[in-house]
């Protein structure tokens, strides 16, 4: 009971400090300019991808490296293919060193280092993968795909399977 008034007092002090701040600091904080991807939507909802993209990528990485699973969904190469535009002139190609690159646009803003591209390609390249991606969930802990929804989507896209 004795602590309660102290809490209120602290909250009031904080409110006073916030009120003193110039309004633009709160309202118009600069936002990263994130380039749009090629497709209509990402492999997961944007909010999920924002928070959890590395979980998907890391899991897929291990599945590909050690078990030879080469589905396109969650593949880093496909992230780049969709999110980084290929420049006609190689000299004008946007690389991860530029803040205009999809990954660095946000990572620079959030001050989180990306080290994927010390080894991996940061620009689209032909992967030579001819096989169609199959939509069978293979990961136990990854969010399961809604197969009905996926089938409807494929049907809409024009059949897909023979």
């Amino acid at each position, binding site marked *: 009971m004795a602590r309660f008034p102290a809490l209120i007092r602290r909250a009031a002090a904080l409110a006073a400090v916030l009120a003193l701040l110039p309004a633009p600091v709160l309202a118009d904080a600069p936002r990263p300019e994130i380039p749009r991807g090629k497709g209509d939507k990402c492999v997961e909802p944007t909010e999920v991808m924002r928070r959890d993209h590395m979980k998907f990528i890391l899991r897929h990485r291990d599945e590909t490296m*050690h*078990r*030879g*699973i*080469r589905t396109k969904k969650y593949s880093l190469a496909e992230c780049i293919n969709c999110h980084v535009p290929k420049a006609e002139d190689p000299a004008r190609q946007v690389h991860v060193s530029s803040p205009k690159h999809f990954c660095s646009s946000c990572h620079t803003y959030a001050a989180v280092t990306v080290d994927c591209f*010390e080894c991996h390609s940061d620009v689209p390249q032909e992967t030579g993968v001819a*096989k169609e991606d*199959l939509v*069978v969930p293979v990961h136990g802990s990854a969010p399961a795909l809604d*197969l009905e929804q996926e089938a409807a989507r494929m049907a809409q896209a024009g059949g897909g399977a023979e």
Partner: protein
Amino acid sequence: MSENRTTDNGRRQFLGGALALGGITVAPGVFLMNVAGAKPAHEAVTSDVRWGLLVDTTKCADGCDACVRACQAENGWGGPDSNEVRSSDDQKAQWIRKVHLRNKQTGSTHSLPLMCQHCEHPPCEDVCPTGASFRRADGIVLVDKHICIGCRYCMMACPYKARSFIHEDLHGQKVNAPRGKGTVESCTLCVHRVDNDREPACVEACAAEGRRALIFGDMKDPGSEISQRLKRLGVRQLRADLGLNPGVHYEGV
């Protein structure tokens, strides 16, 4: 005790049933057992296949390095555009190299490509302190560069000198062959191609030269060309005495 045993049996039967069910289907129309042909992209590799390579040294020409150049182009190492400018020649990447053998007594010479031999019992895997060196279920020996700490024990353990270490910052790597400073690398048997039913780049290049000194295939499939060829006289593994059972075989040395 007897009660325990009954429980165990029950559990075994249940597990056996579950496995049998799992073996039939994972989804409507998708079978776990692949009867023939290509491995679907979502399926893991299995030990039902073991990839191997046969080098017919009688067809390998002295002075021809088509396999080496094809490997460089495919995997983005070496060549005039290499980022390894400060490394000495014996430090530079070397996934595959041409070796010349000469018998001092008879003077006979052989020319052959030497690369990772994809051993069944790879010493590189044995000595790796982090588990970065590993052998895939289908026999391809790889370095998981995400785990590699660059200690280079594997380079010392390999009797074929098949591995190299990257000393410098690299740029413009190939999408299918990520490579980076501070990690060890070697021939991957073009694993990205093999997983998509294609042959390694060196094998393709050798055939394009009209030599066909390199034969690639599944050594566990008795009908495959490589299985037939491995039965012939004069086919051997290099340093077979080490008992590593390499997947790469040589004919005519």
